[in-house]
């Protein structure tokens, strides 16, 4: 899957999107977020980091599939 990256998360990972192959252990959005934090520990230093699944804020329990559109959401700051 492609994980879309924005703001400071894009700077940390170094690109605007990330190719990611889900493992069998990564069943929920929380599982995926934890795996991302393990691969990129700098993400854990942010005030908040979350996922959006198919354009909606994730609560951690969503079951995810390789075909889902995932975005990494660092702290927001519009306005």
């Amino acid at each position, binding site marked *: 899957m492609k994980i879309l990256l924005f703001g*400071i998360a894009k700077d940390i990972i170094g690109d605007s999107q990330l190719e990611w192959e889900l493992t069998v252990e990564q069943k929920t959005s929380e599982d995926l977020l934890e795996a991302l934090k393990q691969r990129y520990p700098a993400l854990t230093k942010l*005030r908040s980091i979350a996922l959006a699944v198919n354009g909606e804020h994730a609560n951690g329990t969503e079951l995810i599939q390789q075909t889902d559109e995932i975005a990494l959401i660092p702290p927001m700051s519009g306005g």
Partner: protein
Amino acid sequence: MIALKSTNDINIAEITDSVKSDSCGAIDVFIGTVRNNFKGKDVAKLFFEAYEPMAISELTKIADQVKEKYQADKVSIVHALGDCLVGEIAVVIAVSTPHRKASFDGCQYAIDTLKETVPIWKKEFFEDGSHWVFSHP
């Protein structure tokens, strides 16, 4: 009207007109502009980026919430994307309600919620570098 636009394409009169309503005696318009300083440092410009489809969806949700919570008739929210120079418009929120307090409150709710839930990110540029801004550092 819910939209993401270049700051040069944001038209305050057009946004205000979009919420006019014969049943409403109040229109409140919040205009967020680019300030020239941050913690004593001179700001040269801001840059906004968004996860665009989700940002439009979240802005629409906020407009619907303002209609429900404050009995607003019409709500428009237009946010800038890309570069914004000092003094230029970053965001415009317009709310029409039957009475004035609700339109003030509706505007405040909309801008506060926008900063929490809408996937838009702001980068500040100074003479000596840049940084991403968090709404609650």
